[in-house]
């Protein structure tokens, strides 16, 4: 019973992170290998505030998320107008830089030994509620002018600009939002495991989230959620060691890319949510 609660919690945390990655990679087509580092920013900021300075949890949680948003702004500003390959490199570099900084500030962060003694304040209801709202926000985003313009940018940035779409502005917006989601996921993570260390937030974790989005289908939020659930719970159920889990991910992704590049759902969404639709758009968007 205890095992399945933690699986649920971690899956929900993944869902929150994956929603952010869906925005940045699925909708806007950018590859950020540094999402996990924003998670680290969130976890450490809130953790340190509570452990070292006795700040109440809600305040620390908000601070952690805002710190992630700020970091997203700082990193995103110079990065989003670069070419796709470069964005990956820069976000990777930022991730490494964050880990290096966290390792070095051992007085505050505990260095490579990690930050211990974070009170276990993340509860299942909190996590479930957070996951629900993350999905709610991202769903609304997708089916709005913002989502459409992002997809346009992803598909053909030049044509999008010719239509008056502010490519760089939107990419930055998405980058910042995504960092916020990751940071909040980090907050929940830290206050559940009660311990964090810099090594947990490396680029492999960022890549995992990207892989989940791919597996579900780049343009599909429900697909991303399904992947997060599947890929998150499967190894727990089957009790694989963590290295095998990653091997499994990789094989899945390679298979998807080769044989079914659209992923599980492609651009479509599963129609499980009854939306208040306007009369014309009765069909799937």
């Amino acid at each position: 019973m205890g095992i399945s609660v933690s699986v649920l919690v971690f899956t929900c945390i993944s869902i929150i992170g994956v929603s952010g990655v869906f925005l940045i990679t699925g909708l806007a087509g950018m590859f950020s290998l540094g999402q996990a580092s924003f998670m680290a920013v969130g976890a450490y900021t809130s953790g340190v505030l509570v452990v070292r300075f006795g700040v109440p949890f809600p305040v620390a949680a908000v601070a952690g998320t805002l710190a992630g948003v700020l970091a997203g702004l700082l990193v995103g500003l110079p990065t989003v107008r670069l070419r796709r390959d470069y964005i990956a490199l820069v976000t990777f570099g930022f991730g490494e830089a964050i880990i290096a900084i966290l390792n070095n500030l051992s007085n505050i962060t505990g260095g490579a030994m990690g930050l211990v003694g974070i009170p276990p304040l993340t509860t299942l209801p909190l996590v479930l509620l957070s996951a629900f709202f993350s999905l709610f926000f991202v769903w609304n985003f997708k089916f709005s002018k913002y989502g459409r313009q992002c997809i346009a940018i992803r598909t053909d940035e030049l044509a999008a600009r010719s239509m008056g779409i502010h490519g760089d502005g939107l990419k930055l917006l998405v980058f910042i939002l995504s960092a916020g989601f990751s940071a909040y996921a980090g907050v929940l993570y830290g206050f559940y495991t009660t311990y964090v260390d810099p090594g947990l937030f490396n680029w492999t974790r960022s890549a995992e989230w990207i892989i989940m989005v791919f597996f579900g289908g780049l343009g599909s939020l429900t697909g991303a959620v399904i992947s997060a659930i599947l890929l998150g719970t499967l190894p727990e159920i089957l009790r694989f060691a963590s290295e095998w889990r990653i091997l499994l991910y990789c094989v899945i992704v390679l298979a998807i890319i080769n044989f079914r590049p659209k992923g599980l759902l492609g651009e479509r969404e599963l129609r499980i949510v009854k939306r208040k639709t306007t009369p014309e758009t009765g069909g799937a968007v």
Partner: protein
Amino acid sequence: MNPSVLTVRNISKRFGGVQAVQNFSLQLPKGGIVSMIGPNGAGKTTVFNLISGVYPLDQGEVYLEDEKISGLPQHIITRKGIARTFQNIRLFQGLTVQENVLTALDPFTPYSLLETLFRLPRSAREEKKAKEKARELLRMVGLESYRDEQPSNLPYGLQRKLEIARALAIRPKVLLLDEPAAGLNPKEVHDFIDLIYTLHEDHSLSILLIEHRMQVVMEMSDWVYVLNFGKLLAEGKPQDVQKDPEVIKAYIGEEEAC
């Protein structure tokens, strides 16, 4: 007061060792239809790209009415009133036909991020309005029944029409059409010319056209500019240009069946 809605003055552009456009000037009178013709590789699309801000100018200026637009970012130039279509159709494949038109309306649709995330009433209202505008535009080009289709499922001629509907969504003052009749059969070309004329009348559009089809050029243009190797070869009324010996020489081997 400038009678021309678009003024291009002495623009030049070089790519590495190739001078793609050299010292080219052009005037588009308000409400007029002007064509640019010339052999392949003459630099016509590059001129479009320079006007719409895809490439920065090496030299020269571009004015929209009295305002200098050269040097502005691409999306700003568009919002000031210049819309274009592309030689190879560049529709957004991940979106439906209606959504393609909506994306062009989106930069102007007034609701905020917060209203979006929490699905506040104004966002739903403005979305509805935008969707109605999009349907209206699709109706204008005869594509309304296809609105939920994927663009790639449409026949070629209809994809071209979709590009036009999308461009019109911007409410442009100037419309740049890059070989809009390419790949169409004679009947489609005829329909197409009718459509352009109708839109031109109804929306007082000024149109700058790149075309190879002499039929289109002769029928539609008030004035023609001929380019060759990036330079202006000749300009004038269509019938005069057609008879110009220099122009004919440049086109030998490039004869288009009319």
